[in-house]
């Protein structure tokens, strides 16, 4: 199946490691040009260098998405550099934590606002190509109780609601909007590697929740995201696609 990604311009936030990195690797492999950001200069430079090896146009900068103005300016620069934007994948997250109410402020600014600002800033460009697609990275933490009443979980839920309603709002302009909710995903330098090391009991509990006994890998999430983001996924909009290898137990009618 040809996903139709060749020549498409994709912007992905938080793309030097883990799920974000796997997404840009796969999109680049499928022939899409890539604009990416992350917090650390050297890691961005390394990612740009490595992904460029796939023969597509790759640009990247170190950006703190909490800084709204700097972030929006980066988005515009990236659109200019790529010559447009067909796919937007907001992936950066503040992560979990129940330290103080500042977790809520941080999760709101990072997870929610960066997604909203990105969608609004890029919408004119996404409309232009006629097959614009947004895939918001949410989490199964939004749909089932996990790890305590964390801001992370509630903000991911906000993103799922936002993505559905945005999809109705911009559908007439030919832009599709979806959420993908990964379950626990294991990768080197990821949260679950740290949990395995620092909280082995929690890790063992999580492993027992997968009917197939396997935690997901970033590449598996990336394949789901790439399909939905691509013209091949033309029928899918307003969906929350759960990619969790059976981690969650609810029936999703």
């Amino acid at each position: 199946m040809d996903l139709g990604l060749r020549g498409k311009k994709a912007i992905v936030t938080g793309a030097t490691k883990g799920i974000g990195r796997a997404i840009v690797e796969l999109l680049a492999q499928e022939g899409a040009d890539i604009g990416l950001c992350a917090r650390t200069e050297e890691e961005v430079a390394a990612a740009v260098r490595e992904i460029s090896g796939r023969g597509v146009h790759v640009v990247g900068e170190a950006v703190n998405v909490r800084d709204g103005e700097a972030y929006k300016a980066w988005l515009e620069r990236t659109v200019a550099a790529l010559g447009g934007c067909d796919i937007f994948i907001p992936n950066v997250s503040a992560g979990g934590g129940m330290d103080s109410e500042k977790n809520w402020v941080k999760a709101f600014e990072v997870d929610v606002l960066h997604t909203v600002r990105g969608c609004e800033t890029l919408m004119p460009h996404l409309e232009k190509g006629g097959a614009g697609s947004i895939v918001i990275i949410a989490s199964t933490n939004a749909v089932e109780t996990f790890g305590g009443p964390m801001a992370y979980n509630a903000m991911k839920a906000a993103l799922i609601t936002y993505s559905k309603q945005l999809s109705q709002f911009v559908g007439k302009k030919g832009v599709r909007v979806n959420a993908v909710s990964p379950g626990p995903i294991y990768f080197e330098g990821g949260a679950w590697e740290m949990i395995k090391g620092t909280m082995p009991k929690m890790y063992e509990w999580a492993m027992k929740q997968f009917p197939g006994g396997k935690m997901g890998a970033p590449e598996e999430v990336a394949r789901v995201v790439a399909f939905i983001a691509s013209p091949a996924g033309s029928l899918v909009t307003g969906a929350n696609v759960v990619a969790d290898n059976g981690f969650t137990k609810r029936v999703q009618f």
Partner: protein
Amino acid sequence: MGSEEDFNKRSQTPAYTPVRRVQPHESPETPTEKHPDPELGTGMIDARRYTSAQFMQWEWERLWTKVWLLGARLLDIPEPGDYVVTEIGRESILIVRQADATVRAFYNVCQHRGNRLRDCGLGTTGEARSFTCAYHHWEYELDGSYRRIPDIDTFPQGRPKRGLREVACDTWGGFVWYTLNEKPEPLREFLGPIPKHLDPYNFDRMVQTRDITVEWNCNWKTSVDAFNESYHVQGIHPQLLWYLHDLDIQIDCYERHSRYLIPFGTLSPRVRRPPSIPEPIKSIMKGAGMDPADYDGPIGNIRTDVQKHKRVQGKAQGRDYSRLNDDQLTDDYHYLIFPNLSLNVHADDFWIFRQRPHPSDPDRMFYDILTYELVPEGAEWPERAKHRKWSHGDKSIGTVLDQDAANLPGVQAGMHSAGFPGLWIGRQELRIRHFHKVIDDYIYGAAGRPPGAP
């Protein structure tokens, strides 16, 4: 069989950038200079030292009865007549606050028929201000002299010459130290550089938060060894790799005692930088009054940012850090006060792990956990923790110590094996080598260990 090349690739120490450390001139009191490493060779440490009854006997005669030992905390015996009974090997020692506020120590044994006067632990003589033996009611003053011997006229030989047999004691660091040595060197001489290193912490402002004794199924030295190196962190404490730097450690071996300085609040180079601040490092930030949710810097800056924060905020939190250097505000200054005190010293708390030999079995020991926490100025002084005692593995003593405890019986069992000649010690374990060298100084004297001896 794998190739030598594969072995080397799998086995190399990871590369790392050294952490920032205070320079010697930046430390108000505690010296931070690296002490030159002693030349101790690379020889094997004989496993029989951990299992032999003969060696254990030598330790008693030549070491335990010669060194200074931690006996009691002065804050535990504030009033005349307050006392602590502490045990070492077969001996039980009674440490008593005197009428003139000084402290004296005695063998805890009635001179009549040898009965123990008091049980192990804390107590007070109350109004009586005397010790009466439960057996025939021989009664002793706080200074060990006789107050009353019932029916003294029925002892034609009179009373034993001396009252309670006294042992030498002295104080430092808010603790009473005693020695069974009849001709001891002064305590200060024995402690060497330790008071200069640790006085700035002001242990007197700390309240005891744990007072636990666990009987462990290993030799006392098996336990001392476990706390004398950080090489085992990557083995049995993997969670600490997201908490401390287990490779960039400064080791200093002094004449008898030793220390290492472990950077806390930072990642080990053995693990990758995680996407969020590890929970154990968050706990350090919270302890300093920082909100991890409000921290936007890279994880690698947390250690020095915590130091800066404590330096600025300490006063307002009732915590006087003026005598400590910046590294002392985050790091573990870990000391071995020879022979048996492993100390984790921090600005806001310190832990003593005291290893005591079993009276008769080289395969057993007593592990005392004595922890103390700084009480902020103006805060109410909490009640000290009650003493508790149990056997190996009966109850949790916290994740890290449980991991150590679970490991030690297997190590001790291996010491008995015909397939194990002795300990193969690396550079990260230099303090173990030094510890055994100091033991040799006591056991074998100036002549050194004879060939073939354990």
